[in-house]
C-alpha cells in the first residue's frame, strides 16, 4: 500500500508540474474555438507561429464534446468532456506548418495553418525545439 501511495503522489506531482508548463506559455496568443453542431467553429484557422493557448467552449451542442489539435496522425493537444456550458483548453508552442483541428467523432476535420518563423523560445533553444517537435 505504501508503494501505491508513493506512486500516486509522484503522479500527482508530475501532473501539477505539467500544469506549470501551461502557465509559461500564457504570454502568447489566444485562439477561441466554439463547439457547434457542425463541429469546430471556426473550422479553418490561420495564425503566426509561437506559444498559443487554445480555448474551446461549448455554447450548446451535444454533437461535439471535445477539441483536438493534430499534426497528421499525431495528437498534439486535446480537451475532452466539454458538454454544454463547459470550456477548457491547452497550450502549444506551434512551429510553422499545417495542422488539423477536430471536435470529435462525427464532425469534420478543420485546418490550422501556422505561418512565419519558429517561435522565439524554440529558436533560442534547439533542445526545446526538438522537444516540441517530439
Amino acid at each position: 500500500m505504501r508503494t501505491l501511495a508513493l506512486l500516486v503522489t509522484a503522479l500527482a506531482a508530475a501532473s501539477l508540474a505539467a500544469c506549470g508548463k501551461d502557465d509559461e506559455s500564457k504570454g502568447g496568443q489566444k485562439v477561441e474555438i466554439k463547439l457547434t453542431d457542425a463541429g469546430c467553429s471556426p473550422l479553418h484557422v490561420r495564425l503566426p507561429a509561437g506559444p498559443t493557448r487554445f480555448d474551446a467552449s461549448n455554447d450548446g451542442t451535444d454533437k461535439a464534446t471535445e477539441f483536438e489539435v493534430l499534426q497528421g496522425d499525431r495528437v498534439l493537444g486535446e480537451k475532452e468532456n466539454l458538454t454544454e456550458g463547459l470550456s477548457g483548453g491547452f497550450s502549444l508552442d506551434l512551429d510553422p506548418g499545417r495542422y488539423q483541428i477536430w471536435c470529435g467523432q462525427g464532425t469534420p476535420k478543420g485546418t490550422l495553418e501556422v505561418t512565419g518563423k519558429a517561435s522565439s523560445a524554440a529558436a533560442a533553444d534547439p533542445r526545446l525545439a526538438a522537444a516540441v517537435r517530439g
Partner: protein
Amino acid sequence: MLPTFVIGLREGVEAALIVGIIAAFLRQENRMDALRHVWAGVGVAVLLCAAVGVTLHLVDTDLPQRQQEGLETIVGLAAVGMVTFMIVWMRRHARGLRKELERNAAGALAQGSIIALVAMAFFAVLREGFETAVFLLAAFQSAANPGAAGAGAVIGVAVAIAIGWGIYRGGVRINLSRFFRLTALVLVLVAAGLLAQAAHTAHEAGWLNLLQDQALDLSWLIVPGSVTSSLLTGMLGLQPQPTVAEAAVYLLYAVPMAAYVLWPQRSRPRAPAPQTA
C-alpha cells in the same frame, strides 16, 4: 442533463466493470480478506481523485490530458493482462471441480496474484477517477445549467456504480464452473475492448501514431453522445469509428482467445496441474 449523464456513465462504467469483475472473482475464490482490501483500495482511490480534482480546480489548472491518456493506457494494458490471467486461470480450474473442491481452490491463488488484483482495482478507479472528478466539478461549476448538468453527471456515475455492483452480485450468485462458462467469452470481449481502448488512449497520449486511418464506421450503432454509446465504449471498448490500429489489436486478441475459450476441453482425468497461478 443527458450529455453529462452519458459522460459520467462512460467514465464510471470503465472502472466499475473492472472492480466488479475482480470483486466477483475474489468472492468466488472465497477470499473475503482480499475483497475487503479491494473496497478499501477503491475508497482510497476515490478520495485521492476527489482531492486531485479539487486541488486542480482551486489552482485553476486543467488536468494534463496527455499524462491522463498515458495513465489510462498503462492501466488499461495492465487490466488486459489481469483479465487474461483470470480467463486462463478459470479455464484451467473451473472445469471438473467438484463442489467441495471449489472452496479449496482458494489456496491455489497465490498471494502475489491477490495483491495484483487488489492493486488493479485501485488503479482502475484512479484511471477514470481523475477525469471524472474534474468533470463533475466542472459540470456543477460552469455549465449553462449547473443543476441539471451536475445532476446528470452524478446520476451517470451512480448508474455506473450500480452496474459494477450488479456484475459483482451476478458473478457471485452462479457457481464457479458456470461463472467461467458464462463469463469467459464476455471477459474475452472486455479484454479485447480494453486493448483497443489502450490503442486509442496511446494515440491521444502521443505514443501511437501508426495505422490511424479509419477502419470502419460503427457510428450507426454507437451513436456519439448516446447512452448506448457510453455503455458500448465503456464496457466493450468499441469506438464509433475505430482506427486500423484499434481494430487490429482487438481482433488479434479476441480471435485466438475466443478460440482458446470455446475449444472443447478433452474429458480425461488429468493429473493435477501444479497450481502456481
